[in-house]
């Protein structure tokens, strides 16, 4: 009997991966209960909070204007493979299977506007040469770690990290990505490293929910350029701010009283200990002026959760216009 134990143990270990893999196929809708601002309306200019940026990244980000992506040559630039963590969009995931045996060769995260489809190869192939082409969707290989699919991505293009406020990422960026499904919830965690623009790994996790009744329409379509800002047409101008001239550089300081270093992406401000250093000096704004109840402001609209109310005396339900009128009346 004792002699059989190692054999039984080996058999169990060999079978273990089959028990810990998870079916990912399906459509997962964004639920904006967390990080509403970033996933919904989008980041503010000058909001680099939570980012471990190098000085080079900060300088480049502060040269950015919201008109820069409106130029003809930039309108259809591909966005980062995992920009979905910063956008209000669904994920559609499916597998590529061996046609004879049915085993999963790759997991595919379908693309949508300006974000290319990501293929996570599960067949053990090597990453290509560092000199190989960098496609919009990068190159990714994956393996199961328990119930989590862990992917390593290289060969990405130069992009912006967040949505629309100029934080840069180089084509030397690598991602470690964890896709974890807890029944109907899908957590996607990205650990982004960049030797040029990130001083430390940038870690983000966001949650989606499986949606069996998701729309089946196309997610992708051709991007067509057009004149978005009349005075830029045929001008050759590239909108930008010179160093020290970005009027939004202090946006977070004047709006939320945040210390400048916290707003502008200094890595040490990411850590909980940083709170202790500003405990005596930080003064929160006296009143809430925007996003007072986060995603609850979406009540009644697609994506809004039912039967929840904002506990701020109804201020948020007034919407931006209503709040402004009240504020004007009280002045």
């Amino acid at each position, binding site marked *: 009997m004792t002699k059989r134990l190692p054999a039984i143990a080996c058999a169990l270990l060999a079978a273990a991966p089959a028990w810990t893999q998870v079916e990912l196929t399906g459509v997962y809708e964004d639920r904006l209960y967390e990080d509403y601002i970033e996933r919904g309306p*989008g980041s503010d200019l000058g909001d680099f909070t939570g980012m471990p940026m190098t000085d080079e990244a900060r300088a480049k980000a502060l040269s950015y204007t919201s008109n820069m992506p409106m130029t003809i040559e930039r309108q259809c630039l591909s966005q980062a493979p995992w920009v979905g963590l910063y956008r209000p969009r669904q994920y559609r995931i499916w597998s590529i299977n061996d046609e004879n045996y049915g085993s999963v060769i790759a997991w595919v995260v379908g693309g949508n506007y300006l974000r290319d489809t990501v293929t996570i190869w599960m067949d053990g192939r090597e990453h290509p040469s560092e000199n190989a082409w960098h496609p919009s969707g990068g190159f990714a290989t994956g393996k199961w770690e328990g119930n989590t699919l862990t992917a390593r991505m290289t060969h990405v293009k130069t992009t912006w990290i967040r949505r629309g406020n100029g934080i840069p990422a180089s084509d030397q960026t690598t991602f470690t990505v964890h896709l974890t499904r807890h029944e109907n919830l899908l957590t996607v965690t990205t650990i982004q490293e960049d030797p040029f623009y990130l001083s430390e790994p940038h870690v983000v996790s966001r949650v989606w929910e499986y949606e069996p009744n998701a729309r089946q329409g196309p997610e992708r379509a051709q991007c067509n350029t057009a004149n978005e800002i009349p005075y830029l047409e045929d001008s050759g101008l590239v909108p930008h701010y010179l160093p020290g001239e970005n009027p939004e550089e202090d946006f977070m300081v004047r709006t939320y009283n945040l210390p400048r270093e916290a707003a502008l992406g200094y890595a040490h401000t990411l850590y909980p200990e940083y709170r202790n250093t500003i405990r005596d000096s930080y003064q929160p704004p006296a009143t809430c002026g925007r996003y007072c109840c986060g995603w609850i402001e979406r009540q009644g609209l*697609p994506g809004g959760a039912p039967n929840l109310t904002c506990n701020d005396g109804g201020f948020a339900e007034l919407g931006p216009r209503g709040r402004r009128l009240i504020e004007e009346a009280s002045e």
Partner: protein
Amino acid sequence: MRTIFLTVAALALGAKAWGHHSFAAVYLEDQEVTIEGRLVQFLWRNPHTLVHVMVEQDDGSNVRYVVEWGSATQLGATGVSRETLRPGDHVVINGNPGRNAEDNRVRLLNFLRPSDGLTWGLRPDEVFD
């Protein structure tokens, strides 16, 4: 100047619209503006449809506004097509003004075509991101 900063009540049923870029970075989301004028170009496209509207100013001059709308794909799902609007249409558009006033940009929240009463943006499903 036919730019009205407080909107007709019927148009005020706000529809949220979120983009592939950050709308908070491009537009003043806590402000609304109404422009009224003649549609001169309707660019049915992805990632965002654009409506160019010529707006007459108080001094009689005309200023071209660029109004950002949903993608052709998303608008198609709400019944809008490339034939919905035509150059020459008189339109009243309500939306968020651009952060840079000189850009003359507006993010469309809703619109009205008075000639036939056509509206968009008043129903819960008439949103775009």
